């Protein structure tokens, strides 16, 4: 871990000194605002209908009609955005040759990887906190279930971290940022929808595929359940790809 703070600071600089982070965060917040507005509009129509229908009125609430769909939509947006945040982490330096200097400083490979990853994770955190404004607005007009809101957000954050670990790994394999982004997006999408094939595959294989799919593990967070297996899935997913990244940086030394 030696030297990770120096790398972290430098990467934060490259996100926030250049316009990258601002552009990504602004676009993300704009889209999230749009979804929020759409959901709220839908909620108001539903409420209007519910005035003459007590059965419906009982079943609609802010959490189910606004927060959950919002978070589900944001998860898909993150699928697109995460590769854009991670694509340059290693690729840029590999291309410019700056990696040569970085790897000859007395910093461990783990330090380099963790520093870069945490900087990207910080941007994700800012993005998610930004959408928190919408939730605060909700508390002004009603009472969303804060427990569910928090698990939803935790799910989003863990999923984003998992995608970013994947993206960091792929970025360490190529010096081309576009390849890095496209491959990350493809791999993340595949992990996401893997469970669709679980019904076609056999019983055992189906169960395994289902367990590997990100969509399945996101579900419990969305329902407001904090399950150990789902949390550990994302943590292990992230740790696994960070581990692979460290190996890949090491391999860079081996192969030259």
């Amino acid at each position, binding site marked *: 871990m030696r030297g990770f703070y*120096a790398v972290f*600071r430098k990467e934060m*600089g490259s996100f926030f*000194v250049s316009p990258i982070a601002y552009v990504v965060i602004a676009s993300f917040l704009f889209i999230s605002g749009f979804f929020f507005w759409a959901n709220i509009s839908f909620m108001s129509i539903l409420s209007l209908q519910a005035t003459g229908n007590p059965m419906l009125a009982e079943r609609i609430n802010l959490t189910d009609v606004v927060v959950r769909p919002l978070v589900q939509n944001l998860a898909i947006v993150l699928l697109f955005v995460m590769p854009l945040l991670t694509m340059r982490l290693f690729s840029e330096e590999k291309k410019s040759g*700056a990696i*040569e200097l970085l790897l*000859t400083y*007395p910093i461990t490979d783990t330090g380099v990887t963790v520093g870069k990853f945490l900087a990207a994770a910080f941007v994700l955190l800012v993005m998610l906190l930004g959408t928190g404004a919408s939730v605060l607005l909700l508390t002004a007009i009603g009472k969303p279930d804060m427990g569910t809101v928090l698990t939803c957000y935790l799910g989003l954050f863990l999923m984003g971290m998992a995608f970013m670990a994947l993206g960091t790994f792929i970025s360490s394999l190529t010096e081309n940022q576009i390849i890095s982004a496209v491959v990350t997006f493809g791999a993340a999408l595949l992990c996401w929808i893997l469970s669709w094939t679980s019904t076609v595959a056999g019983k055992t294989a189906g169960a395994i595929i289902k367990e590997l799919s990100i969509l399945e593990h996101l579900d419990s967070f969305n329902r407001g359940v904090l399950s150990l297996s789902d949390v550990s899935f994302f943590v292990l997913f992230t740790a696994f790809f960070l581990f692979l990244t460290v190996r890949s940086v090491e391999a860079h030394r081996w192969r*030259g």
Partner: protein
Amino acid sequence: MIEVEGLTKYYGRLAAIKNVSFRIRSGEIVGFLGPNGAGKTTTMRILTCFTPASEGTVTILGKDVRKDSLEIRQKVGYLPENVPLYDWMRVGSYLDFVARAKGVRSSSRKQEIERVTESVGLTGVMPKLIRWLSKGYRQRVGLAQALIGDPPILILDEPTIGLDPRQIREIRQLIKGFAQNRTVILSTHILPEVGQVCDRVLIINKGTIVAEDSPTNLTRGHGKSSRCRVVLRAPESQVEDVLTHVEKVTGVRLGSSGPGGEVEAIIEADAESDVRPLVARAVLEKGWDLLELGAVQVTLEDVFIDLVTEESEVDSSQQEASQQEVA
């Protein structure tokens, strides 16, 4: 201080360097000389722990490059060939990053950066973006990052490439200045540079070391023959014939012919004998005008070219021989 034994590096099946061995003592300035693609950069990358060797060992300050990579990286300042810096950073914050990365304590970080920027003359440009720096200043920033943390060993890959003559001189002066209590290895293919800066020269060609000595010894030891240059006004067709018949002359090479029938010739003779009086006499006997006559010093460049071409001639003759055997 630096001991390299039997170093070999393959890229795929191609050997970039083959069985390279040398020793560098503490406080020396060693020049690494060779044509492009000779293996200078590869050797330096192995010394700085960036790439591992395929075979052979490198010991720096008693530590093995493979095992104690982190400790060695702490002791070595490195300037890669094309000076890869972060263009979007300001000089000051870049050097701050380097100081942190090299583990300079926060209490002495500011002083350390100040010390280094003063010694390379960067004080005025600290708030500038690296992107907007001229090539000369980029090179200075490159040197500054290598010097941060006060490493006892500096490895500089072509530190003067792409600079204008005045900048080359400044950078050379800087390097000489740092070298007083440091061991410096620098690679170059600019020959006069080596003579001016280095205590010792390693000439590397096609991945092997072909010569190793001080610049003066190299030029002296190589003098198997002496040369002199003569400029005459004479019929060009006869010049070569007449000069080769002068006593003790072993070879004549005609140079460019100038206006008004001027002919230039380089004459080679045994190392011990001075053929100049004999040549002068021969020319005057023929009734030609003798315009210039002078001895030619063997330069490092001649040594270098000779060594580099000798090698390839030996190579090609060997190849021919082996081809004949096959036939």
